[in-house]
């Protein structure tokens, strides 16, 4: 870690406003990108990013500069995003109109019909928030389980278990709708 970075982190821990602004400007893009993966709505991701930085500001005294800012920020942002998901009504977070606003990096499988995709997305939005986040990060975004575990503040085994439960519940929901993946 460079001396100037270390100095900024130490100042932030002491509650220095300029240090907070410097960290905000440095990390807002990465935090936004991470939050967007979870909430999948650019407007909401902006709000959640601001909320996450607000929580970081409030928790500055508990920040440990030796552990680095990025993992700490990501964990707080993840919890802010989970809280946002919990406040949403089921099926409101994955509306098809929102998918179009978010550019995807990979094409979808043409063998799976639009109707099945929509039903899958809606069934997914009905899952508990903590299962959804684990599945989104580990399965959809294909982030390493260790990274997901750090962001959620749980063990790698717990991440695998949440993904397993998410897929099982999703499959059950789809089966009840007559869809057999």
């Amino acid at each position, binding site marked *: 870690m460079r001396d100037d970075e270390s100095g900024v982190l130490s100042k932030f821990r002491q509650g220095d406003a300029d240090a907070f602004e410097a960290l905000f400007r440095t990390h807002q893009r990465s935090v936004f990108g991470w939050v*967007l993966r979870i909430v999948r709505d650019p407007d909401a991701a*902006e709000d959640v990013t601001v909320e996450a930085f607000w929580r970081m500001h409030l928790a500055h005294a508990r920040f440990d500069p030796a552990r680095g800012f990025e993992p700490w920020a990501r964990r707080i942002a993840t919890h802010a995003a989970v809280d946002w998901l919990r406040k949403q009504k089921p099926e409101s977070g994955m509306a098809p109109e929102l998918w179009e606003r978010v*550019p995807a990096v990979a094409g979808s499988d043409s063998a799976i019909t639009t109707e099945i995709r929509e039903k899958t997305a809606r069934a*997914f939005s009905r899952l508990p928030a903590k299962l959804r986040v684990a599945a989104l990060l580990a399965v959809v975004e294909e982030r390493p389980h260790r990274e997901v575990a750090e962001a959620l503040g749980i063990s790698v085994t717990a991440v*695998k278990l949440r*993904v397993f439960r998410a*897929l099982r519940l*999703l499959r059950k929901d789809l089966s009840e709708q007559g869809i057999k993946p």
Partner: protein
Amino acid sequence: MTNDRKKGSGAGEQASATPSSLNHPHDISGGAGDQDAERMKQLLRSALPPLGDQQEPDRDLWPAMLRRFDEQNTPRASRVPWFDWALAGGLVAFAAIAPRAIPVILYYL
């Protein structure tokens, strides 16, 4: 980076497996449960395409952060619960309708 994506699980394949056939995450025996889980993952990725690493906000979020600070610094009077305002409004209305009751109310306060 991938976690545990496996090959050979066509997206359009039809299967008659039941939900319970998804293997437990600690079960390393493989088999049909793994294929079911892989199909579910593929279906999920198809329904919710990955967003990747290159997503950025359309604008600088620092002004929004400053607004958040301002909101927290606003006087407490502007954050009085609606019920308190309604109660105060009711009392004022009552006093306007029955002004003679004001001394009685004040006596019992």
